[in-house]
């Protein structure tokens, strides 16, 4: 019964879609996040929706159940078949999607990599919309923690997986700042732990950090699952005064810890703005108003002037946003 209803609803939706496509032919965009049920991507979707409301593009989103490497491929093929103009995607693999992207582009579909790029495989997508200037993530996190611990003592990093490309870029930059900037001379990185973006593993890894390094002063966790788990562990162990936790988290996930004082501050960017910007860029390129090449500039309402960088990489914002007790009430994502 339920299934029939769903199918009817879908049939109805499909009929609507076909009707609309014949009438005006607006730019159609589909966004494929890594997986369904991930609140972070819900904010990006909201950005797309609001962008398309303003610009008059048609927006849909579909998502696989798991973030496994191949799970997005059938969705991309189906979207090519549907004749969608732009496929925006947060790829689950830096290279497994190459073939299907080539295929899509040969049929005139624009491929936008949103929220992360495909390192080494940039030729297979048209452009990448990144949340922030990634070179700043590492140093900015080190500074945030340094400020809280008086630039002194043992610190550790809790990352996602050992091979997570973005996190590894940030961690390299963190190490670089710690080594080169004399300001951080007394901060000592003791270890890097990997929680695989799994709540359970992140929890045991953090507990092991506390057990293995009794003098630990701070933990940087540049991943949303990790930072929440680290905060939870520190709170449970009643060590919030001894060990400071910073990292990249979403306000809704971290609000509790900010309000009860476990975490002083954490950082992120605006996933919403990424969606908004991607929608503007997609429509502009499709209409021929924006040239997809380095140096092009365009306006996005609320974001100001945006510049297309080398390799068609677009950064949504320059610096990270810091969330603390003073401003967290203003954010809901």
């Amino acid at each position: 019964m339920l299934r029939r209803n769903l199918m009817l609803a879908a049939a109805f939706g499909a009929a609507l879609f076909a009707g609309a496509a014949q009438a005006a032919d607006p730019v159609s965009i589909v966004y494929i996040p890594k997986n369904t049920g991930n609140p972070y991507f819900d904010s990006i979707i909201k950005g797309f929706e609001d962008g398309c409301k303003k610009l008059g593009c048609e927006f849909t989103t579909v998502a696989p159940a798991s973030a496994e490497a191949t799970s997005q491929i059938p969705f991309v093929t189906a979207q090519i078949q549907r004749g969608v103009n732009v496929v925006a995607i947060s790829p689950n693999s830096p290279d497994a999607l190459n073939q299907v992207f080539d295929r899509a582009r040969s049929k005139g579909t624009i491929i936008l990599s949103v929220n992360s790029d495909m390192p080494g495989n940039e030729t297979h997508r048209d452009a990448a919309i990144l949340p922030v200037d990634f070179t700043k993530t590492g140093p900015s996190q080190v500074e945030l923690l340094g400020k809280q611990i008086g630039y002194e003592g043992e610190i550790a990093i809790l990352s996602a997986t050992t091979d997570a490309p973005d996190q590894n870029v940030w961690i390299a930059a963190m190490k670089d700042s710690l080594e080169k900037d004399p300001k951080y001379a007394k901060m000592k990185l003791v270890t890097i732990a990997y929680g695989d973006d799994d709540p359970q593993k992140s929890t045991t890894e953090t507990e092991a950090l506390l057990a293995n390094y009794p003098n630990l002063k701070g933990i940087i966790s540049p991943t949303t699952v990790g930072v929440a788990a680290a905060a939870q562990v520190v709170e449970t162990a009643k060590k919030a005064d001894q060990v400071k936790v910073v990292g990249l988290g979403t306000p809704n996930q971290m609000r509790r810890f900010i309000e009860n004082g476990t975490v002083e501050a954490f950082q992120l960017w605006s996933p919403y703005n990424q969606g908004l910007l991607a929608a503007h860029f997609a429509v502009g390129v499709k209409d021929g108003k924006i040239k997809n090449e380095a140096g092009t500039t365009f306006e996005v309402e609320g974001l100001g002037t945006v510049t297309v960088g080398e390799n068609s990489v677009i950064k949504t914002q320059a610096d990270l946003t810091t969330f603390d007790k003073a401003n967290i009430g203003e954010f809901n994502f």
Partner: protein
Amino acid sequence: MNSIDKPTPSTTTPTIVVREAAAPRPRWQVLLIRPETVTLVLLVVATIVASRLSPFFADLGFILESSTYYIEFAIVALVLTLVIISGEIDLSPAAQMALSACLFGTAFKAGLPMPVAIGVSLLAGLVMGAFNGFLVTVLRLPSIIVTIGTLILFRGLAQVLAGDKSIGGFPSWFVGIDYRMVGIVPVPVVVFVAASVLLGLFLGITIYGRQIYQIGTSEIAAIHAGIRVRRIKMGLFIASGLVSSIAGLMVASRLGSVRYDLASGAELTMVLIVMLGGTYIFGGRGSILGTFLAAWLLVIIATGMTVANIAINAQLTVMGLLLIVSIIMTNAIYARSQR
């Protein structure tokens, strides 16, 4: 097979027989009320529904292209059909695909020539299959739980071997098997059809095929009949490992890269295909034709829902329900025919 095209003779010449103690079921019933018939009917219905759901569905080229995402599992399901008919089960092929593919990728990255890397992967399939076979036939452990253990073990080893990395950079002749065509048909689909015909013949007309059915019907009787039960079962598990490694290589070619999570959760898909095809979960009954039809049924359902933008949560629900409903129906049909 002939159940479809043969009309029902009994309706044209009504058999006027005085009721004896237990009247044999009319011939048309024997021929038509079979699980494969149900699969075929479902296939037709699913195709019609999918075409109604989305105007973008009814396009042979698109369906064939989309089928390459599931056909690797369907190829494994063909061998799994034999395993299940023999009264065993193998839940580890998806993990075997991942481990053999990761071994292939690692060997290639270590600088071994491609044929050697491919050889390593195939050998790994043989070894993993033999390992399952050893645990089941020599140590006599139940395959259902053994292969849950090896499913976790093989996938875990793939993770240890490859970490979270994507291993790629294979030579261009190897990459993109799904875009190589024979006419309008992608190569993996050709492989699937050929494998179906070969295994169908193997099961249908060779002595080994009949022995597999006998083992599944009654292992004790099979032993008394002089059938080398353990050798055949060992052979089936090895075949399952080998075909899994071939399927793993096909995925590697399709993606141009491998990762430990390749085909994760696909054991459900494989078992679903075999069950949808009407193979009896307790062994002794089933056919390659059923599995062949069921593979297309799955392709049609999955592709139809995806192109109609039906949310993945509905897809998970439908797949789970289908599995349960299909075993119930198959059981009901066999229960009838046994009367």
